[in-house]
């Protein structure tokens, strides 16, 4: 397992390097002149040229990339001109908020997705299965940004049970309970689609496993249905489900963009939307890079978890 983990970590290096190339290329492709964008359209050509030189933008692209990569290695992602602060500071601050939201959503969708999948598989074609299968279909069809608005209307505006926006109350907020209250609606909204996807996959994976011979053996041993379902069938199905949870992490991280906008969650998604509108290239670049890298890392975790659960894969 240790050797495998190290090999997987090493295999990560080219992927991460590839990510930096793509992200850098995106920045380089942006039309227009960053110096003009920073100085405004009234800047003199001399000033623009000087700034270009300072930013290293007069050098060949490949050289620029390696300089940028070198800076990245030192934790220097440049400076956001719209916020006038280092990109890394801003991105990390925002990303921690996104992690709280996405993490909560991921826990929710994993737990409920697995449970719904197991329940529906266990009662295939029964009433519970049909009702839940339909609910799941509704869940994966509903636009998450719209669902967020509906939940705000119901729970924040009508019932006044939960706050509608932000991460903390403006006055006297900041406690863990306050955070949890602010988290309920956005995390739920963010989790709905992924829950549906995981539930569907779990159902079909469970049904696939339940027809296999070792399930018959488990029953022939005299195990109870609960044990057969959870201890044997689910245990085997999980191996197929975990990679999908890894992929869902990507949808949750991406979907956070909508949810953060709807609930004004101070995360990296909302930051990106603003940065795109204000054409703050370095900020977009930093945000995309950090989120994408975290997705890659999460997939590595899913991969390791799968290997750990399935002794047949280890070599």
């Amino acid at each position: 397992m240790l050797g495998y983990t190290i090999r997987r970590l090493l295999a990560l290096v080219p992927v991460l390097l590839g990510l930096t190339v793509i992200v850098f290329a995106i920045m380089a492709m942006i039309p227009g002149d960053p110096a003009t964008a920073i100085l405004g359209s009234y800047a003199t050509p001399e000033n623009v040229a000087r700034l270009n030189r300072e930013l290293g933008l007069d050098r060949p692209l490949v050289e620029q990339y390696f300089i940028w990569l070198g800076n990245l290695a030192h934790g220097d992602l440049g400076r956001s001109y719209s916020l006038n602060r280092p990109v890394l500071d801003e991105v990390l601050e925002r990303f921690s908020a996104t992690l709280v939201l996405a993490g909560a959503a991921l826990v929710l969708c994993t737990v409920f997705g697995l449970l719904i999948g197991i329940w529906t598989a266990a009662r295939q074609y029964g009433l519970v299965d049909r009702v839940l299968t339909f609910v799941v279909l509704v869940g994966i069809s509903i636009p998450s940004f719209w669902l967020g608005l509906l939940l705000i209307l119901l729970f924040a505006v009508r019932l006044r049970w939960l706050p509608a926006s932000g991460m903390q109350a403006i006055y006297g907020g900041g406690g863990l309970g306050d955070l949890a209250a602010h988290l309920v609606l956005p995390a739920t909204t963010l989790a709905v689609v992924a829950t549906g996807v995981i539930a569907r996959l779990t159902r079909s994976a469970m049904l696939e496993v339940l027809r296999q011979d070792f399930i018959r053996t488990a029953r022939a041993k005299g195990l109870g249905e609960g044990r057969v379902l959870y201890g044997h069938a689910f245990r085997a199905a999980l191996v197929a489900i975990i990679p999908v949870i890894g992929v869902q992490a990507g949808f949750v991280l991406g979907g956070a963009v909508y949810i953060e906008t709807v609930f004004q969650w101070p995360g990296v998604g909302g930051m990106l939307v603003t940065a795109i509108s204000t054409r703050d290239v370095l900020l977009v670049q930093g945000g995309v890079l950090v989120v994408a890298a975290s997705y890659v890392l999460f997939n590595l975790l899913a991969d390791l978890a799968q290997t750990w659960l399935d002794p047949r894969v280890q070599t």
Partner: protein
Amino acid sequence: MTTLRLIWRNRLAAFGGIVLCAVVVVALLAPLLPLPDPDLTAPAERLKPPFSAGALLGTDHLGRDLLSRLIWGTRLSLAVGIAAAVIAAAIGSTIGIIAGFRGGRIDNLLMRGIDMLMAFPYILLALAIVAVLGPGLVNALYAVAAVNVPFFARNIRGVTVGLAHREFVDAARLSGKSGARLVFTEILPNVLPVIVIAMSTTIGWMILETAGLSFLGLGSQPPQADLGSMLGEGRKLLITAPHASIVPGVMIFLIVMSVNLLGDGVRDALDPRLRSGALSRPAAATEVRRKAATPAAGAGAGPLLAVEGLETEFQVGARVYRAVGGVDLAIAPGECLGLIGESGSGKSVTALSLLRLVASPPGVITAGAVRIGGEDTLAMKPEALRRIRGARVSYIFQDPLGTLHPLLRVGDQLVEAIRAHAPVPRRAAWARAVAMLERVQIPNAAARARSYPHELSGGMRQRVGIALALVNDPELVIADEPTTALDVTVQAGILAILDGLRRERGLSLLFITHDFGVVSQLCDRVAVMYAGRIVETGPTAEVLAAPRHPYTRRLIACVPEIGAGRRRLEAIPGLPPPVDALPEGCAFAPRCDKAAERCRTGQIALEGSGDRAVRCLFPEEVPA
């Protein structure tokens, strides 16, 4: 149940199709409908609630008619979603076909690039592309199309790789067609249906994603409005005028939902496994639906196992396969009965029916009784049945690789069996498990107990299978071809272990096999099965010496030398009849060289005197 489900599914799919068609038709007809100008502002009319005069769905913050905006917005959203799907399909499929057809370095390079793109979270990549191109509906369209390219590239590459090496493509290649012509004449027509299906499953997503970008203000720019930007505008008035956000959201939801319903319906309809019921979940115990009342139990102690008139069917849709057609068996304590027959004769289904382990659906037990110590397992509550399984009666299955759980250590699988029937602490159960593994002659049992099934050899795995069956000291063991999947060299060892333990513990054994040689080694009595019925039974030695049923005689003739025979039974010309089309009269008649007119009509009873019985009108003579 399966048909019910299919109807339910298809009704939903039909519903989705109808809704989708209606939406598309209305969107197409938008210019012809008597709608007010969607962009006409009227400050005096602003924020009218739905159902007000002159504005069925109300108006927005600029007094624009929401119904009109909704229909025009739907038109735009559909157009953009479909366009994105077409672009993604075109580019992605091109990449996929090239990669799959050319293979080698090009394939590697293209797929590496696709993998890189997939390392980005889906929506994030779309955002990055919009950041490059700048906000705008067309740019959002490109972004959404680009993010979906990998999906098409991967799927289509897979299909193309499969096609590129098929005979008809090779033949065309040999006839001197160029690569490009091959692609257009041979590959593309075969890939096209896959592309269309992939499009139909992703188009809903693409409509949703473009709407999402517009919602964020990165897609369509005012005054032009698609559903997403309507929702984005409505959101600003969420509290004062909730209808402005609810209306466009409902429309997006309806479109995506109906696309998904339709897609699911199509996929299910194309899946043959769903029709055949092969995707059904087997219940904890085989369903019992007896046509007649249970035969009354015989008085007195009786044998350990008594099977009376057992019938098991597989009901697939309207077709009924009767695998077991009225079987009677009895096993006394300490006795070994061999149940022998060709594959498909119903011997395994008989064995599995005893503790109701036949997969159900589609299996149903339709008649008979299975008494174990006088109690009918077919009438038992699930919990009572569970207590017998693996405790009083246990099974050894054919293929130990498929029948042991692949992800659990073999020791743990034994421990589980022990603790399912007795409140033994884990430690003690583990010790018992290791001791049992030693009894089946697994070398270094303490270490082997920590192995996973795939780490053991076939012979070792089957020893684990035997240990699993014997660990709770059962009274009866049912062994279903336990050595068939094994190497000839290890078969003898396994049989010796099984026989030794049986005698030592005084177990009863029901041994299912197709091999008379094995029966002669192990069994006191033998029952020969053909087409779901017992055709002959008697003490092994007597049946071997003087078979009375023509089928039995031929079976024995197939074994060149008793005890050494490992040959399969293919030597008998012809095949057993299909169990859904049993001939009237004797099922063996088509293959029997003595068959007469009388053999093909009516029921033939299993008749005999003393220990022996035979189901034949013209049994072989018993030599005096």
